[in-house]
């Protein structure tokens, strides 16, 4: 059955390069999450603002991000924006694409979290003399982020997995890109991608675990 010569040594020799790629993957995921959370909070504020135009922007963003493939979004950033004369590097396209997707999903999570926070809190804060901005940033937002912590962790895992989609814009420095470039040279497809899969698995486990530890520390009452 196995008349295939596994050459694990050859694949393991390129482990340092792949680990460097893993660092880029983490970097993109973290940056895209930071951008995503910031934008998602902005979109949530847009939705709460009561301004028709602003909430239309937020709704459009969320619906497009949630109803089209992430691969399509990254492709659109890279090649679609090219139609407007904006040419981005693969790194930037991937980062913006993932951040766009993150923002859409997170904004929806935040909306769900907001439902769990009673209106009376805002009213109490306002009657204490806070402005509506202060009431949001000091009273509502901290609770919203706390309730949405678990979905945010999931989104972070998704961001890690989504970096592999950089393949479509010829990204070659992240874990997937490095692996497929090594593969193009040596054709040890199975060995190389098996190692990449293990690295991805460990990355996602590390994130889930550290998020759980962080939650235990941050959210004890």
């Amino acid at each position, binding site marked *: 059955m196995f008349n*295939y010569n596994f050459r694990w040594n050859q694949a393991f020799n390129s482990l340092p390069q792949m680990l460097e790629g893993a660092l880029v993957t983490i970097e993109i995921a973290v940056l895209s999450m930071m951008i995503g959370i910031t934008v998602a909070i902005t979109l949530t504020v847009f939705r709460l603002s009561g301004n028709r135009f602003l909430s239309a922007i937020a709704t459009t963003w969320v619906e497009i991000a949630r109803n*089209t*493939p992430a*691969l399509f979004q990254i492709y659109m950033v890279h090649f*679609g924006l090219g139609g407007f004369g904006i040419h981005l590097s693969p790194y930037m396209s991937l980062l913006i694409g993932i951040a766009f997707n993150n923002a859409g999903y997170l904004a929806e999570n935040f909306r769900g979290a907001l439902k769990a926070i009673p209106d009376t809190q805002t009213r109490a804060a306002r009657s204490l003399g806070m402005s509506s901005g202060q009431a949001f940033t000091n009273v509502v937002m901290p609770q919203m982020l706390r309730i949405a912590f678990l979905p945010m962790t999931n989104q972070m895992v998704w961001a890690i997995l*989504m970096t592999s989609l950089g*393949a479509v814009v010829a990204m070659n420095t992240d874990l997937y890109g490095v692996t497929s470039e090594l593969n193009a040279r040596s054709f040890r497809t*199975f060995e190389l991608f098996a190692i990449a*899969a293990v690295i991805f698995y460990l990355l996602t486990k590390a994130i889930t675990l550290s998020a759980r530890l962080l939650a235990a520390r941050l959210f004890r009452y």
Partner: protein
Amino acid sequence: MFDTALTVNDLILLAKGAGMTLLVTAISVFFGTILGIVFGVVRYQIGPWWAAPMTFVLDIFRSIPLLIQLVLANAFLTAVLKLKMSGFAVACGVLSLYTAAYCAEIVRGGIESVPLTLRRAARSLGMSWGQDMRNIVLPLATRVALPSWIGLALGVMKDSALVYIVQVVELLKSTQILITRLQEPLFLLMICGMFYFVISFPIARFGGYLEKRWSND
């Protein structure tokens, strides 16, 4: 933008791509759901300890990028085992297991949402395990699980864009082919995006509606 070199043949290519996307999705969701229900029920029945190996394997499908799963499965089946398998078969197989991994989680959540007292009452009325599952658990668990399952099915449709890696020409790949030839990325991508959106958006809305209607408040 309206002055395009797009011909009828190109539109047919796009339509074929869209058909392929829907076909892959339908097959994967169908088999994935059946497998997912089996895995979910078995996992629930044998308890967390005995199910640990199964949980571990299913978790792998959710912790590794789908793109890598596809490449690995393709390399393993065609290069290592030297099987003659089409990219289409590999894509459907991987996507089915991927769907099953998520579906098992949804099914377990659905079963756990049925109060245990209700099931004990059913059993003490003389219902068999099968009757309890069919008449008590199924209707109640469906209410909890169906909205998530709709979300999953739509997710699989969106993720099926990745099967281009095993040489399956689905919607995004056929768009890509046309972009290379016509050099009108924005226009073509708009068509492609619209297609995904038009299918996904109403169904997602319907799922949200069901979720709201069926929630216990």
